[in-house]
């Protein structure tokens, strides 16, 4: 897969695709952004220390992992904002914060510290987002809303079908990985019966080829792998299938 040419590369013959992707390549930070962000971070942390929010934040993060850390930052940010507002004046606190920052060798002192930035907009109180699940299917049906401009809500059955297809494929993959190609094949057959022309037909075919190979039927595996490459030469699966087809 890693050997596939990227669409932004000259290998892609579609110039518009290449140009569009190329235009997104450079998103690097503007000059000065690194120092400014560091200063703001330092101010926020120092302000949190000033108003004694440390224990709450650390306690909140004690859960574990990045999600908990994010929750803690929300608590922290909220309390900083509230604390600063309650203080009414930044004069004394600001002086103390400034001392804290300039005293720290880790903080660049060249850039001025902007105290009006102490209170960034409070983050929305949205619950943490779940990690995407192991399924391939998007949460919505794959029908592009722009293709049907009159429909804003996509039909649910289609989405359910895709979720089913994705779940069964995941199961079949797991069975194959677990050394049980026959069960994997059986799951795949059930999938074929239930969703004959699904969105994930390519994935189903790739898995069927892998199963054939695992069962020792290399002739079938090679033939179908070649047919796959002929049918979908640009598929992300193509390089793997090409290897399988040409493997001695």
């Amino acid at each position, binding site marked *: 897969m890693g050997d596939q040419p990227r669409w932004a590369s000259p290998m892609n013959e579609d110039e518009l695709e290449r140009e569009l992707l190329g235009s997104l390549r450079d998103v690097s*930070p503007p000059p000065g952004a690194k120092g400014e962000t560091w200063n703001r971070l330092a101010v926020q942390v120092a302000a949190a220390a000033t108003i004694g929010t440390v224990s709450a934040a650390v306690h909140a993060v004690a859960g574990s992992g990045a999600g908990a850390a994010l929750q803690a930052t929300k608590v922290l940010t909220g309390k900083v904002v509230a604390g600063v507002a309650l203080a009414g004046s930044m004069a004394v606190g600001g002086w103390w914060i400034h001392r804290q920052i300039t005293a720290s060798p880790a903080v660049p002192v060249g850039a001025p510290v902007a105290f009006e930035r102490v209170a960034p907009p409070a983050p929305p109180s949205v619950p943490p987002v779940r990690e995407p699940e192991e399924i391939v299917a998007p949460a919505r049906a794959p029908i592009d809303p722009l293709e049907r401009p009159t429909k804003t809500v996509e039909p649910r059955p289609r989405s359910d079908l895709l979720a089913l297809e994705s779940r069964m494929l995941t199961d079949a993959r797991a069975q194959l990985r677990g050394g049980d190609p026959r069960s994997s094949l059986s799951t795949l057959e059930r999938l074929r019966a239930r969703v004959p022309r699904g969105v994930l037909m390519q994935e189903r075919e790739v898995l069927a080829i892998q199963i054939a190979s695992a069962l020792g039927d290399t002739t079938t595996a090679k033939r179908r792998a070649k047919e796959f490459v002929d049918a979908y030469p640009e598929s992300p699966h193509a390089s793997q299938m090409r290897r399988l087809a040409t493997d001695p």
Partner: protein
Amino acid sequence: MAPFSPEFRAIYDEHFEFVWCSLRRLGVREADTMDLVQKVFLAVHVGWGQFEGRSKIRTWLFGICRRVASDYRRSSPIRREIVTDAAAMDLRRDDAAALGAESRHRASIAEGILNRMPEPQRVVFVLFELEEMSGEDIAELLNLSVGTVRSRLRLARERFRREVKRLAAADPIGRKEAV
């Protein structure tokens, strides 16, 4: 709160650009990126004690970026539909003069297409096409199987190509100009 440790400073220095670019490519507008980078590193600072080193630091950072970006996108869905501020971003650059309105227009179109992708597909597409990561690395980063990465990439590519074709059909002159 404890002052910043040299270790934290080193992480910040080494990964600032990675975090910035990741957030931008996950759909965060240029104007909002600094706030969110700050949020990511605050999370790193607070949660550093919980990082057990079982994954690579970049994997951990990218996980935080994804959550922050998702939060951002969910909290203000309207932002996804607004034409991006690629123009404003470009104008800050030294070579701003060299960038014409057409190229900024292209960037905003491309971001619009990405913004309409389901997030799981978008992440894989961005990591593969723009970050040029291998499928294996993406699988490790996202804790997915390589097969799932391939599937998401395929669906994302199909969607991208479909949108580009539609754009070209709707505006054949625009396509010619873009070439």
